[in-house]
């Protein structure tokens, strides 16, 4: 029978079905950060269950507020750090080696096609870009995952989005996903997986596919997924070259984790991007999206480039193209947070960091910080930020502040002018 990718993963990982429709899956990777894990650790300790199912399958990073900004965040980091040592978790990333989880863990080769992945973080859906089932969960699910290596799900149905046409100059994966969320609305994909396919997605880099899958949750989706192909193989090759004779052999193996021809999707949508404009959010919900032409001229106080959505090397390259030889508007505070140390180093090697600094940007260490208003660029009441992040909720980057989501190109153009600016006009 022809199956979707998600059906294949559910079938192959099914541990138990305690009730009709409730599927308990074996987990390949359980990821942890310092915001949602310490309470799980403390609870497990209080219950006398301070152990883990398999330390090699647990990946840990301090990323949300790092280096610690105060005693409370230092304490959160310490609980996580002490636990990782106690449980002999090898893959633990502390200050100096840490980065935004959904950029760092793929970069380390931890995610493979066909994997099941959970984390106490809603943007875990990012990892579906590798043909994995990756879902954000709460702290209790995380606790059970750490302890028993399982997680329960209602099997999600698959919504297929076929992206066709040609992406116009200065439009990117971010503009595509904002368009998708506008179309689906903030709960259009609830209890579903969004499968991204079609020629535009097939031509995308892994970084761009991660940008797409990252925001699946903003439409309510359990995970985003892309079909593994040669682009996936090339990204993962340094990590799998000992397992396969050739990239072609890896591709053949990975291809078992593609949806079959003739599989049954719950819904299929076509999006032609040939006439897509750069997109920008308005107001306080991620489905409130408008073409940049309708948003131009609105002043911003801060421009933030970073996050698990758009803090990767290709994002920095795009923004730097606009910033090279230019100075950002004096009314704007520009903040760049490369998402991982590797991205930071590569950007340094390519001369990108210098371009950001020369243009007037502040360059910070890798961290989630400002995206959720915890550190490193929090807004004051009444302030407006143009951001390459994923949520424009009221007060998201600071109480009383407003966020406009956009691509790195639109953010860079906006930094130069101090008002929301169409990157095609620069």
């Amino acid at each position, binding site marked *: 029978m022809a199956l979707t990718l998600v059906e294949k993963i559910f079938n192959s990982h099914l*541990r*138990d079905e*305690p*009730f*009709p*429709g*409730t599927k*308990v899956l074996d987990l390949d990777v359980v990821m942890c950060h310092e*915001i*949602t894990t*310490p*309470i799980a650790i*403390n*609870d497990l300790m209080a*219950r006398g*269950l301070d152990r883990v199912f398999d330390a090699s399958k647990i990946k840990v990073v301090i990323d*949300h*507020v790092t280096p610690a900004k*105060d005693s*409370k*965040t230092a*304490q*959160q980091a310490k*609980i996580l750090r002490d636990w990782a040592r106690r449980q002999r978790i090898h893959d633990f990333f502390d200050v100096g080696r840490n980065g935004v989880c959904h950029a760092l863990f793929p970069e380390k080769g931890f995610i493979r096609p066909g994997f099941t992945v959970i984390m*106490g*973080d*809603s943007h*875990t859906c990012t990892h579906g870009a590798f043909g994995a089932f990756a879902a*954000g*969960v*709460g*702290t*209790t*699910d995380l*606790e*059970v995952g750490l*302890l*028993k290596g*399982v997680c*329960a799900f209602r099997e999600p149905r698959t919504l297929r989005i076929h992206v066709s046409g040609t992406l116009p100059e200065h439009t990117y994966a971010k503009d595509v996903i904002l368009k998708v969320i506008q179309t689906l609305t*903030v*709960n259009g994909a*609830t*209890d579903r997986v969004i499968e991204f396919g079609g020629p535009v997605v097939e031509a995308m880099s892994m970084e761009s596919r991660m940008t797409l899958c990252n925001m699946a949750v903003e439409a*309510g989706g*359990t995970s985003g997924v892309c079909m593994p192909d040669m682009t996936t193989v090339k990204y993962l090759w340094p990590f799998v070259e000992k397992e396969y004779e050739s990239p072609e052999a890896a591709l053949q193996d990975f291809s078992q984790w593609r949806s079959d021809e003739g599989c049954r999707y719950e819904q299929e949508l076509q999006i032609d991007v040939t006439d897509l404009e750069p997109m920008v959010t308005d107001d306080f*919900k991620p489905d409130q999206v408008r073409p940049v032409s309708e948003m131009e001229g609105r002043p911003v106080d801060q421009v933030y480039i970073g996050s698990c959505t758009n803090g990767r090397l290709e994002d920095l390259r795009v923004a730097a193209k606009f910033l090279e030889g230019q100075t950002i508007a004096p009314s704007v505070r520009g903040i760049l947070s490369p998402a991982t140390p590797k991205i930071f180093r590569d950007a340094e090697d390519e001369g990108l960091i210098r371009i950001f600094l020369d243009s007037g940007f502040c360059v910070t260490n890798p961290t989630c910080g400002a995206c*959720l*208003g*915890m550190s490193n660029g929090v807004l004051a009441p009444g302030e407006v930020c143009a951001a390459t992040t994923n*949520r424009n*909720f*009221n*007060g*998201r980057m600071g*109480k009383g502040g407003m966020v406009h989501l956009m691509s790195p190109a639109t953010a860079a153009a906006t930094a130069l002018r101090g008002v929301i600016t169409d990157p095609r006009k620069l």
Partner: protein
Amino acid sequence: MKSFGGPVLFLDRTDINTDEIIPARYLTEISREALGPHLLEDLKLEGFDPKGDAIRNARVIVARRNFGCGSSREHAPWALEANGITAVIAPSFARIFRQNMFNGGLLALELPETAVDLLFQFRKEQAEISFDLEGQRLTIAAGGHQEEIAFSLAGFDRTLVEAEGWLGFAAARY
């Protein structure tokens, strides 16, 4: 099993997100109780006062569709429970929030839009909801009027409510 039912807090808006339920600036807390005073602190809604009596007295929230969207933070259900709110009723929930409620032995009850509309008709007076989990029906009462509404609570959800959460169930079974 936890205790369910009591005075109702009506929140007449769709898509209330977890940043509104408990803002990220409080995620540095490592005790659940510390979240209590900040419940719904950033929610902007006409007639709603996050520091008012309605929220302190409430045991049940009735809201519109897609309640709990956004972040996966289980701090949202914890902040509710720290205020004695153990049940939320809405036409739909974001997946992670809904699971987080049941994972903690709390109720996230999905009712049809028409049933939720009926509940909202009681918002003018101090309404109370009582639950009959065995009979799968709830009663809303205010100002001498009352209505009964049937709901479905079965399978995994029911088991988690009876077991007061997923950890106890999973630790014993797997």
